[in-house]
Structure formats: C-alpha cells, structure tokens
C-alpha cells in the first residue's frame, strides 16, 4: 500500500500524485518507471517516475486518464492508498554529454521528461524541451520544465499558446537553426505516433534519438515477454532492456500494432467500470 500525500489536477484528464514510496525514491534514477495496481482484480500498469525526493521518501507520478485503470487511479485523493506499486523498473537512459539535448514530450511525456531534463541540466548540458498539446489548457508542468531547461518550446495544435502546430514541425525548425538551434541529441517521450514522427524527422537530419517505448506490460521483470519490441532486428523486453531504445532502430509498425492488441477489451473494461460507477 502506497499513501498519496499530494494530488494536483494538471488538466481535466491529467493528475499528479506525490506518494510515499521510500524504497523506490531511494533507488530511482531519472527515466525509470513503476508498475501500479489500483484494486484487487485490477490491471498492472506502468507509469514513469516523474520525480523523486529521497530525503522525504516520496516519488511523483503523473497519470493521464485514457482507460479503466488510469481513470480509477485518477479517482483517488490525498490520504488514499494505491494498492500495489513496484519499482524502480527499467534502465535509465545513457545520454551522451556535450551537446544540445532536446526533449520532445507529448501527452504525459513532458512530465516523464521532468527529472531527466533536470539531471541533464545539472550535468551542465544545454537543454531544450519541446512540448506539445492540443490546446493551452492541456499543457502539463510547463512552468516546472521552464525552470529546469535552458529553453522551453511550447506547441499547441490550435495556437492557443506558443507555436501553432505539431512538436515535430517545431523540431524541424530547430533543426533548421531557429530558436535554440539544431539538437545534437533528441529524447522522445509520448504517444507512439508522436515518437515515430520525431524519429522520421531526426532520421532525415541524422540526429541520434532515443525513444521511451510504452508497450503493454504485466510483471515488469522480464518474466512474461508481453512487452517485447523489435529493435535493430532483435527482440528486446522493454521492461528490463528499455524502456529507452535507439529510435532509429525501433520497429514502430510492430510496436503500434502490438499496443492495439486489446482495444476492444479495453473499451469493454472501461464500459464495465463506468456502469459499475453509475450503479454505485
């Protein structure tokens, strides 16, 4: 059981939780994740460790509600407990030093980049975050990221804040020399289609890129192989070998296809949850 000590609503569907998890906080590195289960009979879902505070034994997670489990998690409040949490899982990415490092975040991705970008800034790297959302109100942790990174590039589909357009369009402009300039290394975290588009963009420009893949997972220890992805023609388990992989080597077609394996069942679980909530 993991107690929630702080809850912040970042957008209508995104919540930030600070929870008491001293062992995880102590062992965590930027870029690792946890797996949580919210109720008996519930799914195990992976969530990035957005931040950690070793002294106080706390970790921060940011949850975007997309289905049954994330919604159920989103219903929890301060003082409530999360049934199970295990971590830190996965390996921290190995980001080369001495260059302009650009993090590209969409969806929960900008939150997932938070402590990674801070670590890089602390290391003395030149850092830029390119973060995107449909509209201004859906942007998350822009202020916090602004304090950490040398540059923040905000993109909205409707132009309600920052650059009007997709993160990849702004990324292309940076590559072409605009704003903080051409990246030497790119870190992409977000929805699969976004990561894939970032990969296309940086591939054409010959820029090394790592992507945090988010396949379906169960145990997170290498036991089931459900999280397998093909990278450079080799099968890897994202939970133990990743989640960061050389984006230019990732078989995105397969990864996207595998992530849609249970779309119908997910809808059914969500409908069942909603009707149970309605009946209550």
């Amino acid at each position, binding site marked *: 059981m993991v107690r929630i000590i702080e809850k912040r609503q970042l957008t209508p569907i995104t919540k930030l939780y600070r929870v008491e998890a001293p062992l995880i906080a102590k062992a965590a590195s930027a870029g690792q994740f946890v797996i949580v289960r919210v109720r008996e*009979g519930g799914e195990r879902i992976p969530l990035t460790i957005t931040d950690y505070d070793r002294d106080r034994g706390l970790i921060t997670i940011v949850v975007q509600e997309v289905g049954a489990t994330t919604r159920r998690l989103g219903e929890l409040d301060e003082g409530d407990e999360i049934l199970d949490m*295990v971590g830190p899982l996965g390996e921290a990415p190995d980001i080369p030093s001495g260059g302009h490092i650009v993090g590209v975040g969409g969806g929960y991705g900008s939150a997932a980049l938070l402590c990674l970008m801070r670590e890089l800034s602390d290391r003395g790297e030149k850092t830029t975050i390119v973060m995107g959302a449909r509209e201004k109100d859906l942007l998350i942790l822009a202020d916090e990221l602004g304090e950490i990174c040398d540059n923040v590039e905000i993109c909205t589909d409707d132009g309600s804040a920052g650059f009007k357009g997709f993160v990849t369009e702004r990324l292309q402009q940076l590559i072409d020399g605009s704003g903080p300039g051409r990246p030497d290394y790119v870190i992409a975290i977000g929805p699969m289609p976004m990561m894939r588009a970032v990969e296309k963009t940086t591939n054409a420009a010959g820029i090394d890129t790592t992507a945090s893949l988010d396949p379906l997972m169960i145990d997170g220890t290498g036991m089931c192989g*459900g999280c397998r992805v093909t990278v450079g023609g080799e099968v890897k388990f994202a939970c133990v070998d990743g989640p960061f992989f050389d984006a230019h080597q990732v078989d995105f077609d397969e990864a996207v296809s595998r992530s849609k394996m249970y779309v119908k069942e997910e809808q*059914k679980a969500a409908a069942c*949850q909603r009707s149970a909530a309605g009946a209550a």
Partner: protein
Amino acid sequence: MPVKRADKTPMPVRKPEMRAHDFEEVNEGYCFSHAMFEAERCLRCQDPVCIDGCPVRVPISDFMHAVAAGDMQTAAGILRTANPLAAICGRVCPQESQCEMKCHMTKRFGPVAIGHLERFVSDWEMEQPRSEEAAQPWRDEKIAIVGSGPSGLVCAGELARLGYHVTVYEALHAPGGVLRYGIPEFRLPNSILDWEIRSLELLGVEFVNNVIIGKTIKMDDLFGEMGYSAIFIGTGAGLPKFMGIPGESLNGVYSANEFLTRINLMQAFEFPYAETPLKVGKRVAVIGSGNTAMDAVRSALRLGAEHAMVVYRRSENEMTARIEEYEHAIEEGVEFHWLTNPIEVLGEDGWVTGLKCMRMELGEPDDSGRARPVPIEGSEFIFPVDNVVLSIGTRPNPLLSKSTPGLRTHSWGGLLVDEREVETSVHRVYAGGDAVTGAATVILAAGAGKRAAEAIHSDLNAEAA
C-alpha cells in the same frame, strides 16, 4: 493380513465435459475410507525403495502405516516434517517418475497411490482447526529470502522454525512464484497456496510483496544497513525463451508465462471484472510438451478454444509433462500433434492466422540422449490458428545477478553454487531451486530450500561459536 488389491484406487475426477469449461479443480480427492483402503495396499517393505525415489525422502512406509490405521494426525506430522509443501506436492509432483516408479508394487501391480494419499492427508490437515497466534522469532539474526516460489517458502519455514527473523521479498504483488502465476487453479487451487503461506506467517515469517531485490533494494543494502545475516536466492527461472522464428511478435502470440500469468495472477478468466484481458480464439496452438504446455493448452480450452492443440517436434515418448496431466488433457479433448516442428507464425494485419510446420522423424540420439527429431523434406504444411503459445522453456532471470557484483553464474544464467550445492560465490548468499538448476520441479526446489536453511543455520552457528 488382508489380501492386497492389485490396482491403485482411482482418483475421483470431475467429468471432462464439465471441467473443461471452468477453472475448478479436476481431481476431487479420496474420501477417508478410500484413503485407508489405499494405504492398506502398501506392503511396508523391508527395503522401502519408494523413499529413494523421493527427493526429500518422505518416510513413506511409516506414513502409509499411519493412514492405514486412520491416524491422520500422525500421518500429517510425518509428512510435514519431511515435506513442508505436501498439499502442493501431492498435486503436482511427477510421482510416476519418483516414489511411485520405485514402489515394489509397481513391478507386478499398480503402485501405491503415494501422491493421492499425500494430497488426502494434507487436505485433511487443512480442515483441522488451528491457533491463529503467530510465533515470535527468538534468535537475533535476520535472514532475507529473495523470491517466494517453493524454494523460498520452504527455506523461510525451516529458518522460522529454528527461531530466525525471516523476511520473504517477492517482486510480484502476490507470493508463491510459479505456484501462483504459473500452475492453474484447476490443478492447484490458490486457496491451498494461501493456506501454506498463512502457515508460514504463523511461524513468524514476514512477507513483503512488490520488492525486486537488485532493483528496489540492492543485495549490499540487505547485508549493510538492513542488517541481514544471510540471504537465500530463490528467484526461479522465469525468463521465457522464444523460438526465433518469423512472426513471433504478431498479435495473438504469447509466451506460456504471459498466457498463464494473465490467467492465474491477473485472473483474466474473470474479465471484465478483472481488468486484464486475454484474447483466446477458436484455434490455439501450444508449442512444447511440458507441464507448462499442458497447463496452457488446457487453460485455452477452458477459455473457449474449440481446437486446443499441442504441437511438439519430438514424439509422445519424449513428452516431459506429468502423465496425469497428459491423460486429463486427452480426456478433455486436447489435440496432440507429435513430430511436428513450427517454422513460422503467419499473420495478416498484425494478427496471427496460421502456424507453418514441418513433419519430423526420429533420428540418432542427441546430447540429451533422446532421439533427435529430423525434418522431413517437403513436408511443410499450415495449421490455421488464432493464437500461438510458446512453451519451449525458460531460463533464470539475469536481473539479480546483473545488479550484484561477484554473483557468478553459468553461461546459461544459472547461479553457481559450492560443493554443498547451497552457497553462491558471494559469502553468506545461498541459492536454490530453478535459479540454480534451471527449470525443474517443485519438490527439487523445496528440497533445495530445506538444504539451504540447514546450511545457513550451521554456518551461522559456526560463526557464532
């Protein structure tokens, strides 16, 4: 002396047409009189060779004597002392290649039903009232157990009985190892595992789930700031192998571990109340022939597959599953395709549609001493299938050894242990079960846990002296 009956008293089972559609236990168990009747078949031999067949040397003849006399209390005591997981082993041990194979009765008649009686007596014991007061450790030393499979459970229990503070760390959200996530309810109900775990809690063992040693807590910290005097590693061999054939990452292809974990640990059979889904189509091919393959194929049947088939490149003779499971699988309608080697998983729009195979014939014996299957040229054909489940073996998980400097392994990942077969290359770190041997059996893991507990006790005593 009463006349000895020739045949083993059959185990009452639920009807195949009923049981093949639910997850309730297949075997119903003997009744009291059945049990006494069967135990009476034991010859109480001068040389009870059955014991030699038992990896933990249960004094079977004494046990039979007590059962035949109807003294279940004594019988249970005899069992427990030798095998702390008797209720489980009575259900899952391959008796036909262990005690029952050796039994003198086997040569002329059917063996004494040692396994069924082990099950009966343990089940009887579980029904007796017990005190719910937990024992308190009385020694100062703390021991950490890594992994809650049978090796860890037995090691924990033995050490708790000796008075140590014992903590079992488990990576998953529920303890039991393969007994929890692998072996299905219809063979080993969770309630039995829960009872065993509760027994250990009553002995004073503390269970901590959701902790991965090597990730959440490093081995060094267990010794250092956490103050453990010794560590037992029983992390199993949970890393699934894939075949490396084309199409293995198509949707609908599972490792047996994933397939069974979704069902047993995550209760996918209760979807959508339990939220973890599993897609089981009309035609399911399971590749392999061990207990895991049988569990997967019979689970597929229970989840609605109309054709649940086992595909194996060797013949029936080389099959490694327990004979009882094989017989039950046949009764339930599982189809077996021997001498058939999968070479490609075929798909459409990202989903499995077929399994391309070759027919095999048996050639010269290979390294394992079994006849080597050789492909028959031009024999390729396709099974139309909706799911493929790979059950071709597992390896020890490198997670812990990778994160623990000095912990040495074989090239295939198994932990290296000393000549006593208990201590690893790191001082005061012991290991046993599948993590050392590679995928084996519950009773071998249990035996290893017991051996390690004895070694830990004597090493710590020697140190203190």
